[in-house]
């Protein structure tokens, strides 16, 4: 079971602003998910390695060879705010 405070904590970490109804709904939905996980935890899985990846591949590596970067106008083109040189953002400390 997950409570309202935990939902608000997770929402804050994810920078989400939830309405009261959404908090209500999320509390229910997240609890259902956790219940499901708890159900699985009832199984004896001591000898089973945790699954970190679902594809059976390893060592997909790229040679250390440069590829062209974007022109600056291209990089900045989709930003909501720039000074023509950098991406403008509110100062984190402000």
């Amino acid at each position, binding site marked *: 079971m997950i409570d309202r405070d935990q939902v608000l904590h997770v929402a804050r970490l994810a920078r989400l602003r939830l309405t009261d109804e959404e908090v209500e709904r999320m509390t229910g939905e997240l609890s259902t998910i956790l219940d499901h996980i708890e159900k699985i935890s009832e199984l004896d899985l001591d000898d089973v390695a945790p699954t970190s*990846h679902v594809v059976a591949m390893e060592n997909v*590596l790229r040679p250390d060879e440069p590829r062209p970067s974007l022109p600056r106008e291209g990089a900045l083109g989709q930003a909501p705010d720039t000074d023509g040189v950098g991406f403008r953002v509110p100062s984190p400390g402000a």
Partner: protein
Amino acid sequence: MGAAPVADALAERAYEPVIGLEIHVQLSTRTKMFCGCELSFGEQPNTRTCPVCLGLPGTLPVTNAEAVHFGLMIGMALGCEPAPRSIFHRKNYFYPDLPKGYQISQYDIPLARDGRLGDIRIHRVHLEEDAAKLVHAGASGRIHGAEASAVDFNRGGTPLVEIVTEPDVRSAAQAAEWLRLLRVTLRQLGVSDVNMEEGSLRCDANVSIRPAGEATLGTKTELKNMNSFRFLERGVNAEVARQEELLREGGAVTQETLHFDPRTGALSPLRSKEEAHDYRYFPEPDLVPIAPTEEMLERARSALPELPAQRAERLESDMGLVPDTARLLAFRSDLGDFFERAAAARVGDDSKAIANWIVGELVANIGDADPADTKLEPESLAALVGMVREGTVAGSAAKDVLTTLVAEGGDPAEIVEAENLGAAGGDELARVVDQAMADQADAVEKIRAGNDKATGAVMGAVMRATEGRADGAEVQRLIRERL
């Protein structure tokens, strides 16, 4: 009643610092960790970016093979065991220097773990990507009334290796000394520029104190980004002093991250990135595990050069150098290489003398420069040291010859000849000693009466007459012969 003795006991208690270091090393690969953008060396902001390192939706990272290779080399050089299979995790937090909202790092299964460098154990070595650079714009404008910053993503995605030590360090001086050993080791590996001022080597310190002799650990604080050996030492000393004062006053240390201001020496808490320590790590689904093949391990193993700590040991045991000289030559590989070439060219048993000339006179002459970049040849140095041993040139004159060799090169024997720097000897020296003893008759009387110190007056006269070219021991012998 009762309170005062407790306070006294607190005030008198001796504390022991317990320090662990976390070091970030920017790897000197050509391209970034997960994309083909070239690494940046002062290019115009945001000219080394692509959809991957800008974190645009729909893009996929692909790991740089060379970064893995360098990571394995570092792990092996630090005596770690490479993990048979390691995975990347997402470290989630929001900050403008992190375009994806997470940093790709490693968490519970790092690339390598459990090693040792010098007397400090290594906890782990893992791969990750660097954040972008946040430039505080100041005058360049405000956003919605708040101050604005500008983000430069050139650095974002640069390959990093993070090295975490066990809390084995017991003083600020030891921390700085060990970091020097680590830096010279990484430099020898050729995997990084290891420049602290430019940020390619960055050091954080976890500091706690405990009553001396106790095994439990106190509450630790984290000191961030001390960008020189001196700042590391000063920062740790300041923090240890601050914690001691707190405990002596009966207070408690709070776990926090501190910033050391080198100008004022003050420590101030970093503005807390709200709930920043709740990183919600989970396996990076876009990257498959790294399981080093025997071929990858062998390639890393065979790329390891002789490391400074090993070289110092060899110079001590095989060449008979004293520890300080051996360390100096091993830690400055340019001096060490020059020494080994000169020692190979020597005629007699001059290795120790050559080493002393290098760490003494030569370094005094050329400072931080590489001796291989001067006109001095290792063979000439070996020849010069041999001439000093044979007594054909006096030590003081040999220093002048060395200066000439460094600036102009040439053959030491010819320089001695041309500049008349050869040790005075034979009939010439005998005549000079005769004359000096005649001039210093009073002193000679005193010597005859058993006053050995009076020899100095005769010696001085001989040195003046020969302009320092006489060998002291030979002059002593000639004086005794004539008494």
